[in-house]
């Protein structure tokens, strides 16, 4: 491990923090176009952040330290997650000490804090959002783990950089049917975990139907900014996990120079553009599921992941 590797470790985190709002802006722009309306500018999320950081924070009278600390904790967990995921290079010192199972744990930590904070002020909506979030979370996590196991078995490691290196070291492009099943399951988990349609509606104003929004209703100003930023980072991180597992081409492996890294960043941007457009298309075409259909949706994701695993174990492809 060299100083360069540590520099890239930090650089990759900063890149994620900087790009996440842009990705959210791109998804929003695509959604607007697909609905026949004129889109907000690409940098709208940065404007939202600037606006929120300039406001004075209002806190509920009974808010405890937990409520105030949660935005920082949640944001940090997403930054740590970004450090583990090889989005540009596999030469990440942190990713060597924390594998993908730890990554799932990091996401869970964020979820626990935001849920506790939502219940902290004692409003009906906070508790309602928190319990719905926990329901979605405990169904989505096993499905995500099964997806990861599927990739681990294929490439023989639980660390994401090794998975990427494994995939890129194959000389010919090999199609893994097992990974195809896992890919479908992963997209379903991504939608559920990031409060996207059809499980949650990120643009709703109806407090009774909300999941993620209900939890952050009581937040304002810098706290809200951090939580919004964290949710954009989470979407960005999930996209990068998806790229690492299923579309690793372009990611710089060991000992890459500046040129290859620039290429890797370019490849990442292209992949984000395509993924964002696909996400917006899917969201535009689907309606929101009845809340109690969400478990069916996630069970289906789990089933797909298990199918992928079985395909690998039984057929060896």
């Amino acid at each position, binding site marked *: 491990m060299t100083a360069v590797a540590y520099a890239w470790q930090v650089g990759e985190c900063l890149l994620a923090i900087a790009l996440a709002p842009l990705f959210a802006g791109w998804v929003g722009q695509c959604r607007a176009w697909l609905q026949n309306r004129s889109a907000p500018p690409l940098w709208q999320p940065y404007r939202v952040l600037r606006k929120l950081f300039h406001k004075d924070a209002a806190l509920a009278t009974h808010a405890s330290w937990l409520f105030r600390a949660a935005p920082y904790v949640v944001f940090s967990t997403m930054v740590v997650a970004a450090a583990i995921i090889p989005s540009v290079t596999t030469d990440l010192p942190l990713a060597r000490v924390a594998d993908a199972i730890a990554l799932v744990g990091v996401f869970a930590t964020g979820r626990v804090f935001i849920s506790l904070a939502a219940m902290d002020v004692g409003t009906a909506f906070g508790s309602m959002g928190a319990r719905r979030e926990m329901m979605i979370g405990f169904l989505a996590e096993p499905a995500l783990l099964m997806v990861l196991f599927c990739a681990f078995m294929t490439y023989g490691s639980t660390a994401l950089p090794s998975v990427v290196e494994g995939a890129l070291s194959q000389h010919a492009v090999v199609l893994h049917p097992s990974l195809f099943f896992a890919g479908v399951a992963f997209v379903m988990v991504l939608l559920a975990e990031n409060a996207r349609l059809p499980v949650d509606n990120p643009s709703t104003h109806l407090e*009774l139907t909300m999941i993620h929004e209900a939890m952050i209703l009581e937040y304002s100003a810098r706290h809200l900014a951090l939580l919004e930023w964290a949710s954009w980072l989470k979407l960005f991180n999930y996209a990068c996990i998806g790229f690492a597992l299923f579309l690793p081409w372009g990611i710089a492996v060991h000992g890459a120079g500046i040129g290859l890294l620039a290429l890797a960043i370019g490849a990442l941007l292209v992949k984000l553009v395509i993924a964002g457009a696909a996400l917006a298309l899917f969201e535009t075409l689907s309606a929101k599921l009845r809340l109690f259909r969400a478990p069916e949706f996630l069970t289906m994701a789990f089933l797909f992941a298990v199918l992928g695993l079985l395909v690998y174990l039984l057929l060896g492809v």
Partner: protein
Amino acid sequence: MTLDLLLQEGCQLPANVPARQVPVDAAQWIANAQRLHDQGGCLLALWGADDRDRDGVFRVFAAFLLPDQLVVLEHTLAGANPVYPALDPWFPVANRLQRALYDLLGLKADGGDARPWLRHGGWPEYLFPLRREVGATQSYANHPRPYPFVPVQGDGVHEIAVGPVHAGTIEPGHFRFSVVGEKVLRLEARLGYTHKGIAKRFEKLSLQEGHRLAARICGDSTVAFSWAYCAALEAVTEIELPRRAASLRALALERERLANHLGDLGALGNDAGLAFGLMQFASLKERLVRLNQEVFQQRYLFDYVVPGGVAVDPGVRAVRALLDEAAMLELAVPALRAIYENHAGVQDRFRDAGVLSPELARAHGALGLVGRASGVAQDLRVDLPWPPYDRLRPNRALASAGDVAARVQLRFDEVMESLRLCRSLLETLPPGSSQLALPAAESGRLGIGLIEGWRGPVMIALETAADNRVRRCHAHDPSWQNWPLVEYAIIGNIVPDFPLINKSFNLAYSGADG
């Protein structure tokens, strides 16, 4: 007294539909209410008047809607002890109407719920704003009191309090859900937050300017309310409206229906998560209201209907533009309907959500669109057609499933029917004048205006005073009847489905609170 006798009793009431006024005593009040109930009549409105300055008594009026006419019972109450027999044993809607009547005028029903409805502590409980001795400009300190909601007990039952301030820009109303997990066991609404004292304000107006206030009772039904007011006034002054004016009013009423239905259809798609639907319908609605601005000089047609006619007479070019727009909508709406009906996700949300059974709808006297979606075949434009609907012959849209899907389907059907009516009105627009000067009204006369607005029947009861002034004006919105039904429709559904179900009813806050 049998119903037939009752209907020959009393006198013809000036109104735009067949109406009869029957003076009764307390015993006849109950007997007639019971008989009207047995005959399938429904209680439309309940209001009172303080006539102590004239003959020392209070009067309470109950308007019942029968298939072929409107019957208004009038009961005189001695000034000292104004108590009248309660109607809620036969007509559940009377519960809230009686409470509102007590809050405003101090006339007490001899039974039923005694909790306040419109009085939220904005004025003292010994004071009744509609009494003559109470000044309209006096203000009082606000002393809100806790409101006892009906408690639900059981293992794991808890309450979710929603509103009156909501996360979106919508009107205020408080909803108390008693839930187990996500399942709703009971919903109780508390409304009245937008009570503005409109009835009291009317008493300071002249008959000629009252329509402007009527137009502002409920913004999305402005044509219906101002037409109802003008119809009542024109019935009292016994003038016959020019045929052209009647046609133009009907055109405005149908355009109001179109604008609201298009808006609702988009919002219903959005509440099911399909923002695409909202955007398409919002753009259609926007084009409609922009054409309103161009042709009628009002986006939402405020003050278009004036006593004696209409404010603006569209020219030949405007008629052409309106016809072109109808042709555009006749293509666009069925295309969007096909998208809604073929979208599995949307249909999954709409079907079987918020079912209002036909039995329940009939028992509670569901009105208008909500009633028609639950098999209650009631549409004043068909049942009691006033000009120009008597020659237009609208077709009644009807569904029986009573779920969100049925209310959506009904809106689509009514949009197409309204487009047909608009086309027919425009193609056969009678020549002549579109406004008439109104003679001065006789003092002390009661007139009724009853109009089928987009939500359902809208009623104005107008009593005249000397010097062409308003003595008493009572406005009734069909939301009074339909709000309690939302509470039934949600039972057994899950909490996150409430916004969709509520939107499919889309009832008025401001219109009902007065």
